[in-house]
C-alpha cells in the first residue's frame, strides 16, 4: 500500500497544480479532490470549467472518464459478495486504480473476506488522505512554478503510468491503438465527444480481437 500511496502523490500534486492553473478557488479544488476522488475527472472538470463549458457537458465528460470504474466494479462484485451492503457501498467510494489492484491481490489470497475488506478500507482511506494532501500541496505550490517548465505534461505522464500495465496482451494494445487513432481522427466533434466515441471504438476493437483469437485457437 505504501508504494501506491507514494505513487498517488505526484499525480495528486499535478491535479492540484492544474486546478490552481485553471483558476479554481482552493475550497472547490479540495471539494473536487475529496468528493470526486478521481484524477481524470478532476483534470477534465477544471479544464472544461475554465473554458466555460456547460454543466451538462462537464458532467458527461467526467462520467466518460470514470467509465473504467464500471469495469473495476464488475470485477470486484464477486469478491465483495459476502460483505454486508453498507460495507460494499463504502468500499465502492474508495475504489481507485491502485485500491483495485491491491484489493484484487488481497482477496485472491483467500481467507476471511472481512479481514480483506478491513485491509481494503485501511488502504483506501490512506489513499484518500494522501490524495487530499497532495492536491492541496499542488494547489498552493502551483503558483510558485513558472509555466515554461511545462509541468502540465506531468498529467498525461501519470495516465501513461496507469495504462502501461494494461498492455500485457496484444488485444489490449489493439484496443488502445484504435482508441488513440480514433480520438485524433474525431477531434472535430463538439463537446469532446471524441473521448467517448474513441473509447467505445477501442473497447469494441479489443473485444473483437479477443473473440477472433479464441476462435483461431479453438480450430
Amino acid at each position, binding site marked *: 500500500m505504501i508504494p501506491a500511496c507514494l*505513487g498517488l502523490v505526484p499525480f495528486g500534486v499535478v491535479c492540484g497544480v492544474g486546478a490552481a492553473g485553471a483558476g479554481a478557488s482552493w475550497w472547490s479544488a479540495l471539494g473536487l479532490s475529496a468528493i470526486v476522488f478521481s484524477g481524470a475527472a478532476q483534470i477534465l472538470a477544471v479544464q472544461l470549467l475554465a473554458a466555460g463549458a456547460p454543466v451538462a457537458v462537464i458532467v458527461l465528460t467526467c462520467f466518460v472518464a470514470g467509465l473504467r470504474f464500471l469495469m473495476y466494479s464488475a470485477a470486484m462484485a464477486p469478491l465483495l459478495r459476502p460483505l454486508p451492503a453498507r460495507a460494499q457501498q463504502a468500499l465502492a467510494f474508495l475504489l481507485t486504480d491502485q485500491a483495485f489492484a491491491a484489493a484484487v491481490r488481497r482477496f485472491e489470497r483467500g481467507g476471511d473476506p472481512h479481514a480483506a475488506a478491513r485491509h481494503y478500507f485501511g488502504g483506501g482511506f490512506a489513499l484518500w488522505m494522501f490524495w487530499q494532501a497532495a492536491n492541496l500541496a499542488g494547489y498552493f505550490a502551483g503558483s510558485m512554478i513558472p509555466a515554461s517548465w511545462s509541468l502540465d505534461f506531468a498529467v498525461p505522464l501519470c495516465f501513461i503510468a496507469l495504462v502501461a500495465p494494461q498492455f500485457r496482451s496484444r488485444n489490449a494494445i489493439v484496443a488502445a491503438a484504435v482508441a488513440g487513432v480514433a480520438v485524433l481522427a474525431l*477531434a472535430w466533434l463538439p463537446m469532446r465527444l471524441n473521448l467517448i466515441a474513441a473509447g467505445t471504438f477501442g473497447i469494441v476493437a479489443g473485444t473483437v480481437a479477443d473473440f477472433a483469437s479464441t476462435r483461431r485457437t479453438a480450430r
Partner: protein
Amino acid sequence: MIVIVGALNYASRLSFIAFFARRHIPASLARAFRYVPAAMLTALVVPMVAAVPHAAPEAGLSAQALVALAPRVAGAVVALAVAWRTHGTLPTLVAGMGTLWLVQAIVAGAP
C-alpha cells in the same frame, strides 16, 4: 456541480457491484470489460499529449506545431517504455519530464 460529478463517479463505481452482487455477469460482457481501461485511458492521454497551442487540424502541421509537439511525443514514448517496465508513477514522471526537457533544449538550440 462537484457533487453531481462525484455522485456520478460514485454511481459508476457502485453500479456493477450492486447490480451484479446477486447475478452472474455474462461471459461476453466480462470479456469486453477487460479492454475498458486500455481504451479509455488511451483516449484520454493522446489529446493531452497532442495539446499544443498552434496545432489546428485544418492548418496542418506547421513548423511551430512540430517544434512544440516533438518533445511531448518523445517524452510520452519514453514514459510509456519506462512505465511498461517499472509500473511506477515516479520513474515514469522522471523519465517523461526529463525527455521532454532534453528534447526541448535540443530543438531550441538547433534552428
